[in-house]
């Protein structure tokens, strides 16, 4: 009896936050009540126990166990307290990064189940090598160092057999007929070298220039810190991409579908070489999919290999998929894998087979055509819906060659990318910008589908049939009660039933796709808006231009400068300004602060008294005329809720003075005044733009004792990114394309505010004509009719 054999044992598990790991923890806790667990988890920022709580025990896999324990003397949390120890550890460092105390705990284990792996198809080569290749060896090494010999059960994959046709028996690749005689130590050294070479290459001046220019393209004038962080991010991404590509190329060159299978294969070899006295059993599942029955039918964690492809197909993104209809898709439900691992562990090192493959292909194959037909039928009956609430019709599957599908996706991507670039070059705002952001999402979808097709295609090409003789031996050795409690028989899966009643419903539920008809109600925006307008918030910070009003500093200058001009002078002014417009706007795009400094020099010699007098009309004639009433309303809603309201703008203080009653604090640009009562045209301090805005708000909060996490910020462009990023509740107002994309990705509230419908639309931002007498009025420090 498995439960009895494992009674009183202490079992260590690596990779418990993964798909198999979580299922394993759940199953052991529920079905082997006598065992205790040691979970080796990479601590990260939060620390191992917190990660275990959040990422393992909060998972819905434990719902069943929690329910079962509810009525008992020992509820779930108490049971965890008694039976589970979490230790900080990392299989990608030598000695597993264990503290002394944790080493002792680890040494006291009877069974070690090593299921940690870099399973992502896009793992960089060095990561895959460190985790998949060296991970098992490090575990064995640590045990050897401590002179203990628990039973090490290493989880590998069937695909270590590589791209081959025909039977793949349960033996080490290095002992089989197709061995290339690879030296795993050399592979490790090469991968590490590649990492340092790539890092070095990424720091070459021409590369850095490119990264910087890409960052600027994405963010615009967001200020130096934001740009620097983005550039570094792009550089890191570039390195990763290089190493992913290197992994793929290396794997393909020596006959494995991808870096995962290749590093796993060498990992087995390395483990066998270095295990010393530690008894090792290897369990090799094939493609693991949602649970057949335990803890509940359809349970799945993460969005895995086949699911994105299926969803892409159901969403109409993928009309074709490579593969031969009579080919086998080797899929195995997660609970069968978990049961097999536990059974192997329970048999002990003496009796357990050295290698156990858990696969369906050799004994109960799922034909590709069966899968495809079932998927199509199911989605015809249960279609997904597009944003308009219309059902998406799934196409007939053609089984074309792989190249054709990739070509199709590539073409789609090219079209979308070009459209996107064209849109980003346009000065779009609001709804159109949101549309462009949607396009970017679509590009992302296509890219993902493309990568999955690339990868999954490789797997479908792999026509190996995995033998399960050892698994069957394990199965036959189990008594009937264990066979009932720990089903590890691949023959028990009825594929059509599994696909249509268990797997697909679970995939759809996980995929966050629209599976009900009718238009989307914008629940998300409502929820976000409620958060923003919650009494708990402290401060609401607003940008001015294009956030509260659709105007800019050039317009307010034009208004003030033309106020006292006669008609011909006005016309000359307008023509001159129009001629300068392209230069000004390009300067503004490069650096806002520089632009403001340059532009405000035009106020040089302007008499303060005249500006003050004329600014009075600015509120009515320019600001209110061009304001977004919903924005003004929002400011007042914040005030009514007791929030402090702050206006942070690069506009000059006198131009926004009329907005004082709306704000507790106005932070604006200020010009120095000369003794003769005229403006100098020079700013008194750095104008609040870009990252300065974030600093201004942070300083304000600190001085007034507020928390940035409880602040709301409203802004319209990526140059305000630092401000938006520093608060807990960012709101993108009428965002330009790039900000719309960012807001969408990060789930920020997006508001579309418009000018009052039907309101006056002055053609040119020039002041209304004054009477002759008023026009000729003189002010201290100015010649009559000063145009400054």
């Amino acid at each position, binding site marked *: 009896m498995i439960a009895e054999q494992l009674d009183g044992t202490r079992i260590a598990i690596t990779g418990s936050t993964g798909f198999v790991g979580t299922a394993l923890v759940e199953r052991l806790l529920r079905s082997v009540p006598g065992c205790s667990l040691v979970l080796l988890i990479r601590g990260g920022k939060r620390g191992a126990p917190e990660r275990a709580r959040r990422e393992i025990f909060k998972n819905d896999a434990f719902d069943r166990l929690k329910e079962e324990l509810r009525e008992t003397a020992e509820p779930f949390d108490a049971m965890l307290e008694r039976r589970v120890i979490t230790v900080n550890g990392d299989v990608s460092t030598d000695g597993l990064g264990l503290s002394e105390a944790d080493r002792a705990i680890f040494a006291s284990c009877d069974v070690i189940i090593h299921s940690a792996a870099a399973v992502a198809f896009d793992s960089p080569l060095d990561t895959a090598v460190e985790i998949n290749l060296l991970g098992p060896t490090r575990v064995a090494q640590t045990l050897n160092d401590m002179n203990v010999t628990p039973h090490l059960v290493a989880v590998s994959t069937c695909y270590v057999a590589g791209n081959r046709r025909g039977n793949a028996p349960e033996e080490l690749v290095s002992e089989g007929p197709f061995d290339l005689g690879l030296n795993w130590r050399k592979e490790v050294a090469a991968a590490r070298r590649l990492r340092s070479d790539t890092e070095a290459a990424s720091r070459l001046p021409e590369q850095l220039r490119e990264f910087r220019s890409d960052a600027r393209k994405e963010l615009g004038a967001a200020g130096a810190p934001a740009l620097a962080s983005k550039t570094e991010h792009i550089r890191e991404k570039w390195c990763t991409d290089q190493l992913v590509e290197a992994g793929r190329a290396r794997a393909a060159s020596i006959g494995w579908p991808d870096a995962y299978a290749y590093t796993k294969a060498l990992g087995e070899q390395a483990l066998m070489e270095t295990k010393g006295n530690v008894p090792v059993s290897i369990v090799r599942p094939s493609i693991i999919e949602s649970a057949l029955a335990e803890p509940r039918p359809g349970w799945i964690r993460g969005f895995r290999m086949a699911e994105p492809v299926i969803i892409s197909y159901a969403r109409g993104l993928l009309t074709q998929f490579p593969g031969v209809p009579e080919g086998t898709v080797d899929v195995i439900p997660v609970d069968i894998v978990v049961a097999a691992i536990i059974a192997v562990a329970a048999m002990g090192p003496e009796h357990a087979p050295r290698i156990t493959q858990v696969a369906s292909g050799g004994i109960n194959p799922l034909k590709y055509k069966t899968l495809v037909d079932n998927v199509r039928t199911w989605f015809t009956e249960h279609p997904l819906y597009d944003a308009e609430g219309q059902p998406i019709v799934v196409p007939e599957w053609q089984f074309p060659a792989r190249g054709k599908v990739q070509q199709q996706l590539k073409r789609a991507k090219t079209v979308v990318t070009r459209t996107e670039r064209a849109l980003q070059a346009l000065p779009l705002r609001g709804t159109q910008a949101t549309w462009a952001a949607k396009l970017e999402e679509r590009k992302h979808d296509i890219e993902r589908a493309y990568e999955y097709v690339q990868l999954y295609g490789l797997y479908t090409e792999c026509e190996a049939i995995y033998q399960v003789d050892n698994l069957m031996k394990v199965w036959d050795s189990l008594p009937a009660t264990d066979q009932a409690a720990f089903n590890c028989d691949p023959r028990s899966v009825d594929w059509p039933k599994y696909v249509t009643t268990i797997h697909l419903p679970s995939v759809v539920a996980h995929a966050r796709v629209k599976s009900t008809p009718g238009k989307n109600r914008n629940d998300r925006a409502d929820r976000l808006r409620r958060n923003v307008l919650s009494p708990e918030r402290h401060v609401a910070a607003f940008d001015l231009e294009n956030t509260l009003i659709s105007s800019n500093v050039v317009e307010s200058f034009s208004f003030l400068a033309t106020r006292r001009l006669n008609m011909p002078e006005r016309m000359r002014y307008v023509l001159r300004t129009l001629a300068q417009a392209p230069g000004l706007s390009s300067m503004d795009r490069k650096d806002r602060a520089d632009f403001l400094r340059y532009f405000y020099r035009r106020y040089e010699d302007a008499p303060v008294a005249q500006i003050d007098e004329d600014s009075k009309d600015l*509120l009515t004639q320019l600001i209110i005329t061009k304001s977004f*009433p919903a924005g003004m309303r929002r400011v007042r809603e914040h005030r009514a809720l007791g929030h402090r309201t702050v206006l942070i703008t690069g506009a000059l203080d006198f131009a926004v003075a009329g907005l004082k*009653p709306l704000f507790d604090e106005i932070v604006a640009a200020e010009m120095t005044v000369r003794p003769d009562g005229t403006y100098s045209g020079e700013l008194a301090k750095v104008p609040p733009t870009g990252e300065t805005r974030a600093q201004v708000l942070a300083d304000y909060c600190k001085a007034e004792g507020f928390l940035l996490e409880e602040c709301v910020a409203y802004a319209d462009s990526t140059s305000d990114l630092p401000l938006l990023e520093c608060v807990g509740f960012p709101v993108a107002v009428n965002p330009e394309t790039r900000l719309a994309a960012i807001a969408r990705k990060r789930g920020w509230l997006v508001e579309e505010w418009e000018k009052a419908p039907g309101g006056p639309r002055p053609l040119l931002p020039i002041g209304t004509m004054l009477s002759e007498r008023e026009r000729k009025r003189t002010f201290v420090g100015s010649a009559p009719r000063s145009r400054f």
Partner: protein
Amino acid sequence: MPRPGFVLEVDRNTPPIMFWRGEGFSLEKLPAGRSRVIYAPEPEKALDDIDGAIRHALLNPYDHDPLPALMFPGMKLTIAFDDVSLPLPPMRRPDIRQRVIEAVLDIAADAGVDDVHIIAALALHRRMTEAELRHAVGDRVYDAFAPHGLLYQHDAEDPDALEYLGATPQGEDVEINKRAANSDLLVYVNINLVAMDGGWKSTATGLSSYKSLQHHHNPKTMEASRSFMDQHKSELHKSNWRMGKVLVDSGVKVFQIETTMNTDTFPKPFDFLSKREWEWNAKDRASFIGVSAALKRTPNRMARNIFHGIEAPHQMTSVQAGEVGAVHKVTTENVYRQQLVEVQGQTDILTMGIPYICPYNVNSIMNPILVMCMGLGYLFNMYRGMPLVREGGVVIMTHPTPIEFNPVHHPSYIDFFEQVLSETTDPYVMSQKYEKSFAEDEWYKHLYRTGHAYHGVHPFYMWYWGSHGMQHCSRVIIVGGDVKAVRRLGFTPASTMDDAFEIASDVVGRTPTISHLHAPPLMVCDVK
């Protein structure tokens, strides 16, 4: 001799009738045999010697000493005048107010009075622009007074410029402009376009504050004013008269100058708008077709500018001065003489074309709330005796009702439309729940005081104007109105007049009787 008002019984030979639709119009065929169209009396002849008449009125006032006898050197003189909401459309220069004010200033100058303030009595209306002030008082007066800060606008939110004078026996607070209250003489220059204007409403409303206004500008008083055009049956007026008594008792000396106008409303080429359809000649028909076709191709904004550019040829028909009550009695008679039309009995349906203008959107936009106010607040109340439509009947208006607002003039209207009307259209509920927060909003106050915005509470007052109409009718239909806007107002949208009759048939059956109020030009129906 101008022809009196006229009620046309529609028969098979009656041509289609013109309906206003904002900045446009349409011709509608009304059902024969059960419809009637009410036309205003033709414009009376204007006074020949206007300046002479003004001087005569100032020297021969009712129940009051002549104006020169009231002036003495060193006195404080304040002249208050009606704001931009009167007259409609704005009149051609020179404005009546300019003529009267100049006459008063002449007398003051002769008497050696040098402490003179001129105040626009705008209550909670928007401040007038320089151009509007110049139009009303004339360049000469403006340039002589405005630069010295002696010509300015009443500020109902400036605590230092208001004086509390006490309360009426009913507990109504009386608070008016401090300068006006403390002057040795307050001369009020009025334009009486309709019977509702003038009297104690000039000072007690035009120069007062929210504190005072809320006592009569509320749903209860408004609903009990049957109608505003009949002073003796209007609670609004009774309250103003009680406040007037407080003014007199506290020593405020008012010399009221009231003027009346004829109904010569539209200049060429729009003069056909005042004519009776069957009397249209070939030129009128051509004008109608031409103007309609042109308007259809004109963008809204431009059409609005064209109409708001109209200056009416209407002119003064009478002027009288003296003690408020005595003067107003004569004024009302003069207004009725021009505007009263005798109508027999009520009908099931009242139809009205809503024009592009009402008192609150001069040089601005007729937003949905003002459409409601113009229909149910003003045109519905153009009666004496009883309403034109029976209780439980239906009002059908024609107007495009676009969701358009002037953000400078009507900022609180936008929020009223979005926040209040989306929740309730009941005047009582909104007055309880929202009025205070709008009235006391700092931002609205700021815009009212420094910009050209109506006071925050003003949209509520507009809504209250309609309370009597809303309570009286069982359904209101707007033909050609923006569906979303009309529903928000709590009314029913209809695409054509026939559809509107069809919708109304739920309430009034298939063969209802119909009255069409052919206004403007304005008239008051004496319903017997």
